[in-house]
Structure formats: C-alpha cells, structure tokens
C-alpha cells in the first residue's frame, strides 16, 4: 500500500521538478513546481473536440492506458512492505500491462487517419519493441542474483544476498532503468517533448488530436509512469531493511534527483538523429547482457 501511495505523491511533483530544473538550467524564472497539475486542472475544466475520423478506439485508449499504469503500480513494493499484489513473475505482468497501454496509444494514433500521427505511432511501436528485451534481461539478472522472481521479494533480498558486489548491480540496474524510463516516457535523447515540429516528434505527435479530459488522462499516466520507474530505481539503490522514516525521506530524495537528472539531460543535450535511435536503444540490451555476464563471473560460473 505504501508503495502505491508514495508513487502517487511522487507523481504530484515529479513533472514540476523537471520543469524547475530546466528553468534554472536555462536561467529563466520559469513556472512553479505545480504548474503541470494546474495545466491539468485547466484541461479537466475544458470541453473536448473529437475528429470526425476517430471512433471508439480513440475515445477509450486514454482510459485504458491510465488503467494499465495504475495496474502496474500495484506490483511495486516499498521498504520491507510487500506490494499490494505480489506473486512470482509479477514483473512479467508489470511489463506486459505497460505494453498493453502502448498498444492502445499506438492504435489510437492510427485512428485519427493523420499521417503525422501514423508516423509517431510507427516510431513509438519500433522503439518500445526494441527496449523490451533490455528490461527482461535486467530482471533475469536480478532473478539470478537473488534467487527470486517477484518485485517485492527481489528487492527485499537484494542487499542481503551477502554478495559483495551488490553495488555494481545496483548502479548498472539504476542506469539501465533511467535509460528505459527515457525511452518509455519519450524523453531525450530519444524524443524531445518540447520540439515544435510535428515531423520530429514521437510521443507528442501521437496525441495531437486529444483535448480536454482525455488529454489530462494521458498526462496523468505519463507522470505516474515517471514515478513508477523512479520507485523501481529507489528500490534498487536503497536497502529494504533501513528505517522506514528515513526511507520515506530517501524515496522522495531519489525521485527529486531522478527528475533533476532528466531536467538536466534535457537542458544540455540534443535529441538523437531519428535513425540513430534504434542503435541507442539496442545498446541498452547489450549493457544488460554485459551485466548478466558479470554476474556469471561473480557467481563463479564463468571462470
């Protein structure tokens, strides 16, 4: 339960922290930390415009996407407390639920019949397909390292396996998860959410035709997703056995740091050339594979 609530709380300020970081880095005064949620409340007050081309899929997709994200949140533990739903292989369902959300986002974009949105859909489909193996190899590494196959138990045992090299995994895992978040949430260096040209967008171009309530749902799902990955990273870097009060503080510290990292990256880095992206994403799988090989060496299976 704690994990669920903390993610919701973190999602409240996560996008704001990114915005603030970017403002500070570029020397602007910039909007306040809760500006994204103020924008949301504006969206919720507005009416909606639907394209004549769109149909049922376009209307239900945002709700389904948000539901998949809420579903995925059920699997995340906090400290030594188990997640709301925890079973062997829950991370498989976690990944596939998020993929279900992607599926609907993509077909909703195709529902508009716009070539721009088709282009975004095609890119999103390709990039999220390429990132899939990286996450699974990473989880396989953890399963091998701890001997368990569920988020809650893996993270509970992560720091008490008695393996001296646990920090290596913690760092590689955190690095990979940061990169996966960037791809899953369509941020730099794969996609630039602030680009103003449809041709260079991925995620933004897919939701061009959304307005009002549905658009708000899409944004909420995006913010929650940030906090979900932030929480995964937190679980990897902070031992589950520490004092709970300290942990709650650390949790928010990690989330703020994570948001800050994203803000800084976006301030100082340009987006990849579009056809460089597949190479970039596949690199993550290779890093995950290297991490796996390292574990084989450390557990003395590979001399």
């Amino acid at each position, binding site marked *: 339960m704690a994990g669920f609530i903390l993610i919701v709380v973190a999602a409240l300020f996560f996008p704001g922290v990114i915005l603030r970081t970017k403002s500070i880095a570029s020397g602007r005064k910039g909007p306040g930390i809760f500006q994204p949620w103020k924008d949301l409340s504006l969206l919720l007050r507005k009416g*909606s415009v639907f394209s004549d081309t769109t149909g049922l899929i376009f209307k239900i997709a945002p709700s389904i996407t948000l539901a998949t994200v809420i579903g995925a949140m059920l699997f995340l533990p906090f400290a030594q407390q188990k997640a709301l739903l925890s079973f062997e*292989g829950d991370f498989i369902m976690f990944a596939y639920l998020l993929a279900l959300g992607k599926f609907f986002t993509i077909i909703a974009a195709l529902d*508009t*019949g716009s070539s721009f949105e*088709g282009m975004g859909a095609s*890119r999103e489909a390709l990039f999220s397909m390429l990132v899939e*193996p990286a996450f*699974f*190899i990473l989880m396989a590494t953890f*399963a091998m390292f701890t001997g368990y196959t569920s988020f809650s138990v893996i993270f509970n045992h992560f720091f008490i396996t008695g393996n001296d090299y646990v920090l290596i995994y913690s760092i590689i895992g955190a690095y990979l998860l940061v990169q996966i978040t960037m791809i899953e949430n369509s941020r730099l260096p794969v996609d630039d959410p602030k680009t103003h040209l449809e041709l260079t967008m991925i995620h933004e171009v897919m939701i061009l035709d959304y307005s009002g309530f549905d658009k708000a749902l899409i944004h909420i799902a995006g913010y929650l997703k940030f906090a979900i990955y932030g929480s995964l990273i937190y679980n990897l870097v902070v031992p589950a056995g520490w004092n709970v009060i300290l942990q709650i503080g650390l949790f928010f510290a990690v989330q703020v740091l994570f948001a800050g990292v994203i803000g800084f990256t976006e301030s100082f880095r340009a987006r990849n050339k579009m056809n460089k992206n597949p190479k970039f994403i596949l690199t993550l799988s290779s890093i995950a594979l290297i991490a796996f090989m390292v574990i084989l060496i450390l557990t003395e299976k590979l001399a």
Partner: protein
Amino acid sequence: MFGSTAFLIILVLSLLVYAVPEWLKHYFTLGLLTAGIALTSAWSIGVLAGTGQEYEFPLFASEAGVRMVLVIDSLSAFFILVINFTVLIGFLYSRGYLEPYRARMNALRFSIHYFSYLWLWISMLMVVMVRDGLSFLIVWEIMALSSFFLVIFDAEERSILKTGISYLIMMHVSMFFILVAFLIVQKDTGQMSFDSLGEYFGRHRNLPLFLLFFAGFAIKAGFIPLHTWLPEAHPAAPSHISGVMSGVMIKMGIYGIIRVVASMQSDLLVTGVIILIISLISGVLGVMMAIVQHDLKRLLAYHSIENIGIIGIGLGLGVIGQAIGNHALSLLGYAGGVLHVLNHSLFKSLLFFNAGSVYLAAHTRNMEQTGGLMKRMPWTAILFLTGSLAICGLPPFNGFISEFLIYMGMFGSLPGASLFHSILIVGSIAALALIGGLAIFCFTKAFGIVFLGEPRSEQAGNAREADKSMIYPQLATAAMILFIGLGSPLVVKPVFGIVGQTWNLGTQPLVIGAFTANLAQISLAGGIFVVTVAALLLYRRYHLSRRVVEAGPTWGCGYTAVTAKHQYTATSFAYNYNHLARPLLQTKKEIDEIGEDEIFPRKRKFLSHSDDLFKRHLVDRPVNLVTGLLKRLAVMQTGEIRHYILYAFVFMLLVLLLATLKII
C-alpha cells in the same frame, strides 16, 4: 460397443453429403458434426474428469488382421476438445462466408467441400486417437488430402491450384519422414506403433530417430525452415479453412512431436536444445517476416509460424528441464506449450475468420486498399482487436497466460543454473520478449491500417458488416479467450494434469497448488484492471456529459485538403522497421530513377516486395535446378519409336552386364 458403432455410423453417413439436396447439405453436415462432436467430446471429458484412465476400443477389426483401435488418454482428450471447438465454430462461420460462392459454383463443388471438411475433422480426431503406426499414417494421409481439397476450393485461379499442389507435395515429404521413422521402429521392435517407441528408445540412441520424426512433424507444424508451404496455403484457402488449418491442423505436428518426445529416454538435453533453438528462430523470424506483409491473411500465416515457435519454446524447455532434472521447468514449459496450443487455436482462428469477413466486405486482402473498417464493421473490428491483443500475449487475454507459464519456467530455473543453462535461458528470455514486442508492432499495424482511419479505396468505403450468422460463433471464441485470460487457474490446473500424465512427471499436488495460486493472483490483477478501465470509462462519460463536446477535422498541421491517400500505409508504418531488418528480409524495390534531363517526369511505378529467404533458397532454387536438369534430359524424348526401342535395348544390356559382373 455403442460408442465406436456410433462413430462408425458417422463416418459412413458422411458419404451421404453427395446425395442430399443442395439446400440441405449445410444442415446435414452440421448435424453429423454436432453428433460427432458431442460423442467425442463426451469421451474426452470422461477421460479428463475421470481418474485419467485411458479409454480404448476397437473401431473395426477384420478377420484378415486389419484392425483400427482408438485410444484416448488425457493428451488425446485435450486435443480432441481443441479440434472440436474450432471445427464447429469454423463450420458455423462458413455458412455466411460461402454465401457469395453459392451463385457461381455448382453443387458438386459444395459436396466435395463439405465432404472434405467432415473428413478433415474426422482425420484430425483419428490422428490423435490411433496409436498404431499404419493406421496413423493412413489418417495422416487422409488429413493431407482432405485439406488439399479444401485449399483448392476457390481454384478458379491457376495460382491457387499451384499452391494446393505444392502444399500436397510438402505434406508427402512430411509423411515420408514419418514413414521411415516408423519403419525403423518396426524393424527393431516388430511393432509399428507409438506404444513401441519407448521400447526402441530404451535400446538405441534416441537422437537420430527423434530427428526423423521431428523433420516430418515440423513440416506439418511449420517450423522454420520447413514452413514454406504455410504462408502460401493459408491465404489461398477460404477463410474458415485457413482458420481451421492454422488453428488446429498444424497442431497435429505438435501432437506428433509431443508423443515422440514423451517416449524418449536419453539424449534429452541435446533434443531439448534443438527444439528450443529451432523454435526461437521460428518465433523471431516468423514475426519478423509477418510485419512486412501486405496481404492480411499472409501476415496471419506468418504469425502462425511465430506461435508454433512459442509452443516449441515451451516444449523445448520442458525437455531440457527433464534432462537436467529441473522439475518445475519441465512442468511449466510443457504446460505453457500445451496451453498455447489451445490459446493459439482460439485467437488465430478468430483472426482468420475476421480476415475472411474483411475480404468479403472489402473484396481485397491487401491492407493498403482497406482502412476505416471499424466504423463500417464494428463487431468484426472488436473481435479482431480481441484476437490481436490475445496473440500479442497481453493481459488480461489468454495468450498472456501461456507465455507467462513459459516465462515463469525460464525465470524460475535461473537461480542456481549452470553456465550453459543460464546463457541459453537468458537468450530465450530476450528472444521471447523481442517476439512480444515485434508482435505488438505487427498487430498495431494490422489492426490500425485495416480498421482505423479513413478507407483507402472505394470498396473499403462501401464495406458492410458481416452477417450475424458469422459474428455469433466468433463471440463464443472471444468469450473463451477472455475466460482463459481471466480465469486461468480453472484451465491451467487440468493442463498440469495432462502434462503430468503424458510425461509421467509424477507431479506433487503441492507444486501445482503453488503455481495455480500464483495464477489466481494474475486473475485478481486482471480483474482489478478491468474494473479500473470500466470505472474510468464511466467517469469519463459522466465528465464529458457536463462539458461541451464538438466534432472537427483531424489536425492537419495547417493543411486543409487532406485526403485518405495522405494516411500512413502499411508499408510506411513498417518502413523504419524494414530499414533495420533489411539484411534478413531482402526487401526489393523496383523504381526507375528520374533522369536529369527529364523535366516533366512521366508516370512511373514503384514496387516493393519482400521474399521469403528460406523459400527462395531451400525450395525454389533446388526445384529450379532439378527442373533445369530434367529439361536437358528431354533431348532424349525425340518422338521416334526406334529411339525408344534403342533405350530399352541399352537398358537390358546394362542389366545383363551388371548381373554378369555380380554388381546387382
């Protein structure tokens, strides 16, 4: 005995299809099907619900010693139920699908069609019920022949007949391997039967015989590189036939592999690794080739290869688990594979039926000519979407459950695994994850291009929803898909039982209990998800009812003269992927570049096409080589009688010479 007599009566009555008047043929066939399905399903449920006792009775036995005995164990029972369900739904669907054909085809064509349909069903049932090798080969042959007649039903076009014949040839190559394998068993044990396999395997090396059987059965199942008939035959056949062939007939190959593997006693590790690697290749390449297809049914056919791959991954892991003594891996791998047989039969037949409805409504299978069909055929679209989500393995649909079992087997076997095993498993995990991702890419394309957006051609714009008689049966399939997805423990538990008996795993109830409890959690998560979606949609409705909702055009970036042709097409959707996969897919483009002196470019064509590499190098090239050689030999065919007499004379001389030299 009553049961076998009733079964025999159905076999004999099937001949009457030719005699009954035309308007009655459909109902007559339906009556026979229903009776037979009720009978065989009752047997199967009896076996599955009972203590797992085998059910055995002779079908007929003549005094000359020719006898055919039907044996139903839990594995046969499972397959019988899978066959019956899809065959029945397919037949119900066929009524509406065949309607346009009625006007232009004569009664005999329809009689042959119905008769072949009945016998395809009967032969598949018998394939899983007979154990004796000779009977098996006979019914296997009947299965190939009847499906051949079904494929060429629409053979007004020469190309379909050609496809049919090449299909028939492939099926006989398959049969040749199985025959040789059975003969080897007979020579050694004196008995030609699945039951004597164990005896043979106990005495000899297991691998060579397994490879023979595997080659035969893998052609039927469509493992790469033996899949070449599959993407040709499925699009050529009428859609209800494609659904039945892809849904259940190719699974007969899987059934054969299971029977052989379950009797094996040594060489298990290498066998498992072989099955696993071939399956991984089939899975990944199958879906990779599916993405670039424009023909909706061909795309689905390539997906069958992918799914056969997933089934094979499960079986391969099971064998490896037995080899290294990892009980949980065996149980989960086999159960995942076997369950995927059922799952794939459901969603793939559903998808093929819907592709058929699209074909009837839009008169094309080319995705570039479709679009916007969801508004015109909402039920077909929703059913196709259900099938798409299921085939991508997304929760809460059934495909997820079988893939989850396989994943669980893999992840669960990692802790404490040996070096070789862990590398193999991690490779498989990455490949399975990639297959999942690629499938999503493929089906967002298929569903999005065909059903969403604006129609890309006039026919697509005029499409009408399929007849209710075609929709209703499919709803049953969709309901099964959701049922397995949300109520998985109810289905997986019997599957564990079947697996335990087939492979003699002697599974402890405790282990099964733990896995089933795990699946109950998935059902819970699925349930929560469905409730969340429903709640959000209800709230959305309430919310929007109090706001201004307007309609407008799609955002065109300031450009207002947008037409349907500006939409993304199937080719453009797959373009970036195609760019990545070019070395493997060998997409060819044909275009003549615009010359520098060409101020006003003339009209020109652009053509892009991806070949099946395996078909080109493994089938087309050798066949062309042989035909080329044979053509050269045609010089001898002079048409003059004296030359022919000379050939005979030379031949006799040769025989005489060889005989004197004691060579022959």
